[in-house]
């Protein structure tokens, strides 16, 4: 007897999670816009940092999620893992787009250019491209089961290539502001307390919001697959 998770009732973000998203997002917004002090050097534009960096970290989380789900899918061939992977990839892509957009908004006043090819940005952009490829493969990869396997392989190959991409791009060039969270003095020494707290709120809000959207997307995927199956049954009934 197979344990087919897809036939379980679809999951919805529980009211607790939705509530948490609301609270943390409001808190993070307030902190970022009001509570945190204005940066001496960069001015108010710096506030984008509280959205930009947490979103980037959340996208790395999404990458890990998709990688693990892909691996498990190939091992078990249980469609539930595939649903997790595709939902994670799509929301991860959304988050990555936010990172790139906020990055550009931040870069223009500070560096004078919308885009530079510095190491960290380029590496991140490449990861974003891989997510785009994943989503395109979903659409054009053929029928569901084949696409599931292909996307799983893509995410594994992409993940495995991350270290070497990081080094290649870094040796190529560097320009991004130096790390302020993980500096030599230890975690968080580069920032004054209030900024660090705001950053933390931002990170929590980002992850919780991601979780909400992720589960919504997951539910959508599950219902979509169920609908397709019903449609297929109806077609078969007609032709027989």
């Amino acid at each position, binding site marked *: 007897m197979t344990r087919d998770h897809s036939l379980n009732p679809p999951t919805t973000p529980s009211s607790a999670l939705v509530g948490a998203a609301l609270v943390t997002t409001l808190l993070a917004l307030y902190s970022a816009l009001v509570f945190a002090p204005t940066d001496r050097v960069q001015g108010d534009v710096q506030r984008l940092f509280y959205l930009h960096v947490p979103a980037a970290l959340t996208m790395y989380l999404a990458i890990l999620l998709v990688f693990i789900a892909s691996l498990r899918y190939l091992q078990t*061939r249980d469609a539930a893992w595939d649903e997790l992977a595709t939902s994670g990839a799509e929301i991860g892509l959304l988050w990555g787009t936010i990172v790139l957009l906020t990055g550009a908004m931040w870069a223009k006043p500070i560096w004078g250019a919308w885009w530079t090819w510095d190491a960290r940005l380029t590496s991140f952009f490449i990861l974003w491209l891989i997510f785009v490829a994943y989503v395109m493969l979903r659409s054009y990869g053929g029928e569901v089961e084949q696409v599931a396997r292909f996307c799983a392989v893509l995410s594994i190959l992409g993940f495995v290539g991350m270290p070497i991409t990081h080094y290649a791009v870094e040796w190529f060039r560097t320009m991004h502001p130096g790390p302020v969270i993980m500096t030599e003095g230890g975690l968080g020494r580069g920032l004054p307390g209030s900024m660090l707290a705001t950053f933390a709120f931002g990170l929590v809000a980002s992850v919780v919001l991601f979780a909400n959207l992720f589960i919504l997307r997951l539910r959508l995927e599950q219902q979509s697959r169920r609908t397709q199956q019903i449609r297929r049954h109806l077609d078969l009934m007609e032709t027989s």
Partner: protein
Amino acid sequence: MPEPAIKISGLSKHFGPTTALAGVDISLQPGEFLTIFGPNGSGKTTMMRIIASLSRPSTGSVELFGQNIRRAPAHARQRIGFVTHRSLLYSSLSGFQNVHFFARMFGVDNAADRAREILSAMGLEHRMDDKVSTYSRGIEQRCAIARALVHHPDVLLLDEPFSGLDPDATARLQTLLAGPEGESRTVILTSHDLTYGAKNADRVAILTRGHLGFTANVEQIAEGTMPDIYREHTRGNRG
């Protein structure tokens, strides 16, 4: 009791909520010829592909002469010949080059001679050096069968091999299958054709929506009643 040539137990194939096969059990003795009928989407091709090890089942197993094919898939493939409606031949090579290549891949001794032999048995002596792209559908299908037989497989899987063939080519094919090359083998054939499909069969079965709803020895079926039996078992398909 001799070991069954093919033993299929609890075979199912699904992806998420979609089910192609819903638990199939059947055994074939060595030398037995089984024809499976079924409407489109019933899972015939899925089942054949699983037995041929082109596809993985979700649950269940296929045993070939007592050996689970998943344990040693390469060994299992050595004993299987698979024909589907696509010929799986290289169109820019000749019939002989194709069959010779597969003979070498299957480790056949004197591959070139064996290739010529089987192609002649399929009636292709005069066409074997022409490129496959020049073949008619009927000739290409015969060449595909030569490819499937070149390594003396114990088991022959034929998935709708008559599709796209005119009645003359169909008849030729059936004669070939009834002849020396087809006789000693365990054969599973799937077909749409209710009149011809069971011609060489020892047993027939009907697959509907992933279930084997009906199996019987050919002697038990009165002449010409197959279409009625088929209609009865595939009617409605109430989910």
